[in-house]
């Protein structure tokens, strides 16, 4: 268990996460989310008015499974900002309500 082999899927995920300042791994698309939790995550991102990329895990079984071990997180959606795992929709909601997500996004705008 301690030895985590770096698979091709991990590499692909790392490229996506590092290549996009804000990226959401979700079920469905921003226009047609296929799950309530993904829908909630999109609503938060839209409310933030931030540019984001999205990956539909339903279209890619390797990423759908791989993302869970990548972040040691069992569920989808998953939000990454600046290459770091931020959380799922519950944490997004908590951070949004606390104003923390807004701060993270502002930080990106200033850095970029």
């Amino acid at each position: 268990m301690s030895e985590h082999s770096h698979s091709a899927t991990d590499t692909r995920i790392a490229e996506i996460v590092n290549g996009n300042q804000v990226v959401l791994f979700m079920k469905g698309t921003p226009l047609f989310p296929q799950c309530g939790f993904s829908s909630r995550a999109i609503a938060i991102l839209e409310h933030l008015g931030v540019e984001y990329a999205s990956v539909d895990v339903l279209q890619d079984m390797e990423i759908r499974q791989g993302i869970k071990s990548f972040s040691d997180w069992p569920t989808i959606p998953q939000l990454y900002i600046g290459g770091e795992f931020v959380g799922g929709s519950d944490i997004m909601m908590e951070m949004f309500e606390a104003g923390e997500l807004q701060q993270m996004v502002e930080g990106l705008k200033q850095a970029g």
Partner: protein
Amino acid sequence: MAMPANEIEALIRTALPGAEVTITDLAGDGDHYAAHVVAPEFAGKSRIAQHQMVYRALGGRMGGELHALQLTTAVPT
């Protein structure tokens, strides 16, 4: 697939003995829950780490037999 609320609570309390667990059956169907977990074990941990501790307590069920669990965590005040 459904999972009774008391089973969820028992799993969490086994892993986090100091935890106060409040479970709400959101849809009344034994399948869509909200859990609020307040545990001294969370002290000093990030939100992600706190949620991971709960997910670990639930074994492999999260994302499988337990699809819809809204989770909030806190340290007792």
